[in-house]
């Protein structure tokens, strides 16, 4: 409780200093709007629905792409860990493409798919996929061989061993890979939305972009704020349960 109060106090102080800087008129209000006018923007944008709509568009792209990336990446990671052939082909590809900043997929996606939802989905999937493959592969390789041996003595075989021993044993690696994939996907999606207008729906990135076009700094800062909040929420909702589970069972890290 005491720690929460300190946090709260810190942010109130931050807002207050910001407000004082505006009052001191060092910079033009065009460059540094008052926190209250940012709040005004957020309120109107929330009331007329633009903010909610943009958030939904962005979240839909992100969650769909992320889910596909996970669903494809996990089994592929298991394959690269299991078969030498997959390791030498797909594994090398994943290792290479993972070093490519996922924003770099945007031009290619636009040429391939046009200014459509598919392009956005593609960018998010590319951001997620390679991290998940590599993390899963890495996780499987770090499973102590004795786990599989112990399971075999108890009658566990091929598929059962993979699903009930190898996969859960690699969970700490997989979860950190999922987090990394999420971060890559989120960043690349924002870049893509700011970079180019997608005709099938206006996301948060577009709001940010139009804020700049209209010189509406209150909108720019307001949307940035929303993006931060969504990022934090996603972290809490998507990863906290896993991390709590890892903490409880493995006794590692802090939940």
């Amino acid at each position, binding site marked *: 409780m005491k720690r929460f109060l300190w946090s709260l106090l810190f942010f109130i102080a931050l807002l207050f200093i910001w407000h004082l800087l505006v009052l001191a008129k060092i910079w033009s209000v065009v460059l540094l709007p008052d926190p209250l006018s940012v709040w005004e923007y957020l309120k109107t944008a929330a009331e007329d629905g633009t903010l909610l709509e943009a958030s939904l568009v962005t979240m839909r792209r992100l969650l769909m792409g992320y889910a596909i990336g996970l669903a494809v990446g996990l089994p592929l990671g298991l394959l690269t860990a299991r078969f030498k052939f997959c390791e030498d082909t797909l594994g090398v590809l994943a290792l290479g493409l993972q070093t490519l900043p996922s924003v770099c997929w945007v031009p290619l996606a636009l040429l391939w798919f046009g200014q459509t939802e598919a392009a956005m989905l593609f960018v998010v999937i590319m951001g997620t996929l390679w991290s998940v493959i590599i993390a899963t592969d890495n996780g499987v390789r770090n499973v*102590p061989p*004795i*786990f599989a*041996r*112990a*399971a*075999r*003595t*108890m*009658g*566990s075989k091929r598929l*059962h061993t993979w699903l*009930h*021993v190898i996969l*859960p*044993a690699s*969970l700490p690696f997989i979860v950190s890979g999922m987090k990394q994939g999420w971060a890559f996907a989120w960043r690349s999606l924002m870049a893509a939305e700011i970079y180019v207008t997608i005709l099938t729906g206006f996301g948060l990135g577009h709001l940010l972009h139009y804020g700049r076009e209209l010189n509406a700094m209150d909108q720019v800062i307001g949307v940035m704020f929303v993006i931060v909040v969504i990022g934090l929420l996603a972290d809490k909702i998507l990863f906290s349960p896993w991390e709590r589970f890892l903490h*409880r*069972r*493995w*006794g590692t890290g802090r939940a």
Partner: protein
Amino acid sequence: MPIEEELQNVPPAKLAVEKVSKRFPTGRGGEVHALDEVSFNVNVGGFVCLVGPSGCGKSTLLNIIAGLEKPDSGQVLADGKPITQPGRDRMMMFQESALFPWLDVMGTVLFGLKLKPGLKEKARREVPAFYLNLVGLGKFSRSNIHQLSGGMKQRVALARALAPNPRVLLMDEPFAALDALTREQLYGDLQRIWETRKKTILFVTHNVREAACLGNRVLLFSPYPGRIREEFKIDLERPRDINSVKLASYSTEIMRALKGYVAAEVAE
């Protein structure tokens, strides 16, 4: 299968190891002769300890009996049937507990049980509770593995191995990493469980005293190539105390023999 039937003692099995040989390639192109035509029997319900220095092939032999590895030649029979793969009739305990961190204690004991066909949902809950009580961990069924001490972890591993009601228990230095006091408690518990649950136990250790304390027979192993050199019968009443004087005289005798083989090997 009703729960009473599931918890009944199954008849322990007889093991026959017949001329088992196994070689491993070493890094530099040579080979290690881990087992050289090893033969011995374990009677129904017997408690046999294999003792010898590290690297003499004891664990390899245990893995072969468990069905985790195949011998180059020779065979192992369990009740007359050749062993070709792991089976629920032979459960194994390892030096590191090899417990799965993603399961709690109850889930751990259930792991092998869930793979046993024909077990009812009710039994799935009662059987683990029975074995956890047997190893003295009845109150810890919802604990996580990382919260347990080394001795408790090995107790969970023992419960996990007992739960599918195997006829043979294969134990690969299960107490080697524990402190002396914890070990002593486990010696007592293991003897008690062996008597009440009627298992055939093959116990591998490098600790001569431990072997003398637990086994009805102690087989002395020495390496390069791995062979059984001598056999000792331990005629002491149970439960045996590791600190008793009578036991000390047995372990001195075994130790003297063991040193003889190790010295002979160094001289060669």
